[in-house]
């Protein structure tokens, strides 16, 4: 390639395509944009804060920490909040979201969440740039709750930043991200067809998608946080310690039975996987849809990141009566970014 052509390619690589995808998760916020050369820019941030009682006293500890001031209070934000709580050995993390939705028990939840979102998303690169943000399905374990308020508040917030915003089902976004398809023996390839499951902190979301359209969507609020809290209860450890162990030591294929914490994590993982498997089967059957070819079940999300996750899920699904043939249980190569990447493609 000539130096001029190379230069042109480099310039092209730096140009962002309009369209931004945002995964607004209970534990993490992930923002994805795509460059003209096809590569992606990803930003992410822990969706949590730690209130500092006396900012002056904490100045030295706050050195290099990201913090935000709201209503006269100082909050350490994101990963630094978690690191500080771990370093201090105690303290309460504030979560602007709970179980996949804006946390009603935190008075300033909306404001704090918006501060974080504004910092991570930034401004539109053109007027009315499309933004698609993840929205969970209504939880099957809490029929009294629905996502309308959550979706409306976020849509208005992104609109106020200058985006043309709209929600996209977060599990369907995984199908978009991975571009999975179904081979029908008679009718050929069905693009964007299969099952996506997003294993987040506050919720697990599952969607059966046919040619890009979600035909059965469910969520369950028992997922990552639930596992952490239950394991903390039975082991007497702090939730922040459980998170650390889960992220660094857990292998769901070969669980160390002599380790009480790892064993408890394994037990509660089984419970969560079973609930989603059964819920998806019920919703799919009720939708009246049929898949005539074998289906890929694509997984993503922080709770799916322990080693051996797909093997464990396959074992659980094998014991259930699936209404379609499962070709493969797989995990996104980028499980942490798949939802926002799918939303980014939907925004273009």
């Amino acid at each position, binding site marked *: 390639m000539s130096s001029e052509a190379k230069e042109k390619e480099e310039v092209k690589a730096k140009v962002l395509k309009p369209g931004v995808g945002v995964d607004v998760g209970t534990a993490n916020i992930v923002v994805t944009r795509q460059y003209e050369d*096809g590569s992606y*820019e990803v930003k992410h941030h822990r969706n949590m804060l730690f209130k500092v009682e*006396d900012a002056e006293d904490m100045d*030295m500890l706050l050195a290099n*920490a990201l913090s935000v001031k709201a209503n006269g209070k100082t909050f350490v934000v994101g*990963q630094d909040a978690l690191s500080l709580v771990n370093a201090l050995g105690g303290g309460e993390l504030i979560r602007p979201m709970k179980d996949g939705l804006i946390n009603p028990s935190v008075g300033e939840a909306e404001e704090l969440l918006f501060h974080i979102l504004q910092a991570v998303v930034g401004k539109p690169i053109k007027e009315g740039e499309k933004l698609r943000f993840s929205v969970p399905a209504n939880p099957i374990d809490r029929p009294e709750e629905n996502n309308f308020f959550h979706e409306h508040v976020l849509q208005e917030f992104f609109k106020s930043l200058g985006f043309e915003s709209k929600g996209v089902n977060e599990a369907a976004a995984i199908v978009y991200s991975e571009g999975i398809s179904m081979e029908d023996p008679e009718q050929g390839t069905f693009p*964007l067809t299969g099952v996506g499951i997003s294993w987040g902190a506050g919720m697990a979301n599952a969607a059966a998608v046919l040619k890009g359209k979600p035909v059965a969507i469910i969520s369950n609020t028992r997922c990552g946080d639930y596992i952490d809290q239950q394991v903390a209860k039975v082991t007497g450890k702090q939730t922040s310690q459980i998170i650390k162990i889960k992220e660094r030591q857990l292998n769901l294929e070969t669980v160390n039975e002599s380790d009480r914490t790892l064993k408890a994590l394994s037990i509660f993982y089984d419970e969560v996987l079973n609930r989603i498997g059964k819920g998806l089967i019920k919703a799919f059957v009720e939708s009246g849809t049929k898949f005539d070819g074998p289906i890929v079940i694509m997984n993503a999300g922080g709770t799916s990141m322990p080693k051996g996750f797909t093997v464990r899920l396959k074992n659980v699904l094998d014991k259930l009566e699936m209404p379609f043939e499962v070709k493969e249980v797989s995990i996104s190569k980028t499980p942490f970014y798949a939802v926002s990447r799918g939303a980014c493609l939907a925004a273009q």
Partner: protein
Amino acid sequence: MFYENGKPKVADAKGESFNLSEVDKLIKSSNAELLASILQQLKNTSYSPSGANAREEEDFSKDTIEQLAKMMGEKREEGSQDIGKKIEIESNLEKDKETVDLLRSLD
């Protein structure tokens, strides 16, 4: 608004370094078990409150803060707060285009 705090005061201004009373206040305000144990350990070994040993008090607080700052720094280096960092994700332009086209037709 978001902001990044500057360098630790103890690093460049001895006169502004933490004194013991401030550290004690910090323990009370944060209810921090680990910090308390670190401070207690250091108190037992190096703290002398007056006169010629006043410098030790200054060093003591600096050590403490540096330890905690280091602990937080190690976490940061793991890259979990790389806001704005470009992360390489395998992409397939042609497949992405097909996805975008199909989704546009549904939008």
